[in-house]
């Protein structure tokens, strides 16, 4: 009897759940449909399928391809730098208890509590006084700061369950601190660091606020190129490029589910 009751959920949550996922998925499905629309305005149901908006991605003046490459490079460089900064910072506050520990943890995650628009404006104002600074370096600096908390939080979470006696064991066997870190600590905390790095990378790749304030005509990231394109035209080229991004995210999601599981999203 009790076995049977387990796992049964009353109808109200089920109905709300169905409606909620309809709401969550609706705009994404609509974007995918719009990308195959033969007409600039999506008619439902569509009469035929067209791929011309996909071809348009490469031929318009939107410069989406270079934007994509720029986004990838910025996200990659910022993530690699932040893995170093974040992991060393987390090691400093994880092994020992000391008075200022909580202050330091809050400091390392502080960019999270600041509105991106405020930070974007601050960097714009700051860099306007420095002549000759290329746009990519401004955007990179902004991203290094705003994605750092994602790596710090995930690394701290996994370090909190790390058994520090393992390090002492390695040390007593003659390994130096650096060897100990690479041979003992890093292999254990790697999943947490990787999960944080992945989130940080995606945040940077999708980021549009700081980037749009610091961009210029020569260097821009993909989300900013999309935003700018939308100011002048509203044709389904945007839908086509959005579809590619949606399917890319979905693929990444499925890989993540297989490799690290989705539990990292279910942590308080």
């Amino acid at each position, binding site marked *: 009897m009790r076995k049977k009751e387990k796992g049964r959920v*009353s109808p109200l949550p089920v109905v709300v759940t169905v409606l909620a*996922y309809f709401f969550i998925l609706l705009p994404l499905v609509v974007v995918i449909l*719009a990308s195959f629309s033969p007409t600039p305005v999506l008619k439902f149901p569509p009469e035929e399928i067209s791929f011309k908006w996909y071809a348009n991605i490469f031929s318009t003046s939107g410069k989406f391809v270079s934007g994509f490459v720029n986004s990838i490079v910025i996200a990659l460089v910022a993530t690699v730098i932040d893995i170093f900064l974040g992991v060393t910072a987390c090691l400093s506050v994880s092994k020992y208890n000391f008075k200022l520990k909580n202050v330091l943890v809050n400091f390392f995650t502080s960019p999270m509590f600041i509105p991106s628009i405020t930070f974007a404006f601050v960097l714009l104002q700051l860099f306007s006084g420095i002549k000759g600074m290329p746009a990519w370096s401004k955007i990179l600096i902004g991203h290094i700061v705003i994605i750092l908390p994602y790596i710090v939080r995930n690394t701290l979470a996994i370090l909190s369950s790390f058994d520090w006696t393992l390090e002492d064991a390695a040390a007593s066997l003659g390994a130096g601190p650096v060897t100990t870190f690479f041979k003992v600590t890093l292999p254990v905390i790697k999943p947490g660091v990787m999960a944080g790095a992945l989130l940080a990378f995606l945040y940077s790749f999708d980021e*549009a*606020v700081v980037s749009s304030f610091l961009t210029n005509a020569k260097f821009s990231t993909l989300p900013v190129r999309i935003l700018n394109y939308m100011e002048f035209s509203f044709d389904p080229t945007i839908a086509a490029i959005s579809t590619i991004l949606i399917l890319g995210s979905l693929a990444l999601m499925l890989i993540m589910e297989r490799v690290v599981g989705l539990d990292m*999203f279910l942590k*308080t």
Partner: protein
Amino acid sequence: MQRKKGILLLAAPCAIVLLVLFIIPMVYVLVSTLREDGLKYFVKFLTDTFYLKILWDTILISVEATAICLLVGYPVAYFLARTKSKIKNLLLIATVFPFLVSAVVRAYGWMVVLGQNGLLNQFLQAVGLIDKPLEIMYTYKAVLIGVVHLLLPYMILSITSVIQSIDENIEYAANSLGASPVQTFLKVTLPLSTPGIVSGCILVFTLSMTSYVTPKLLGGVKFRMMSTMVNQEVNVNFNWGFASAISYILLFCILVFQIVATMATSGTLKRLGGAKNA
């Protein structure tokens, strides 16, 4: 001594980068704004009902978005945490995956749905519910829909993680002692899931207050929030002093909210005791 040196050495790179690229610029720009214009632009903002209305709208839309996310997100989270069916993983994927899709793309999706010739108007006209297309785009409603869509996954995940960690046997115990399902929910499950509700609400409210892409695309120039006002002052009116004042007023509101929320909820969470680490 050795230990202290190690901590300092490890903390230094990150601390220096944050100080130089984040804390010092944040303070420097505030100080230079105050030095150049004094409190002129802060006073301008706080004495003009036009601007105060924008701050009020920003707060109101964030409160409403938080309330809607909670009302919709809680039952979904409950379902996700308690269902044993295989659909759970599929739904979890559907919750997390919009996270990974840019806010630009998601707002664009709503533009296609809500626009004058959008799917919603086409549908309502085909069914015969309306004669003229509804004007939803570039209104409060459009931005609210977009913000709820953007932030609902955060609420669902915050609450799911907490409900999942509540021992189901506590619910069975309440049941076997004669509590009805509704009583069990109100007296047991709901109080124990407070930490998830609190963290979800703080997160959603903060992210809504500071959202930029969604109000820019769905609110346009007709419905403005604080963040799109900053953009307006920087790129259209070229009044950087005023943009600075608006940026820091928004920052101030967020910090006050974070501090008040943390202080107000730490008491409640303490009273719940064991549930805190749930």
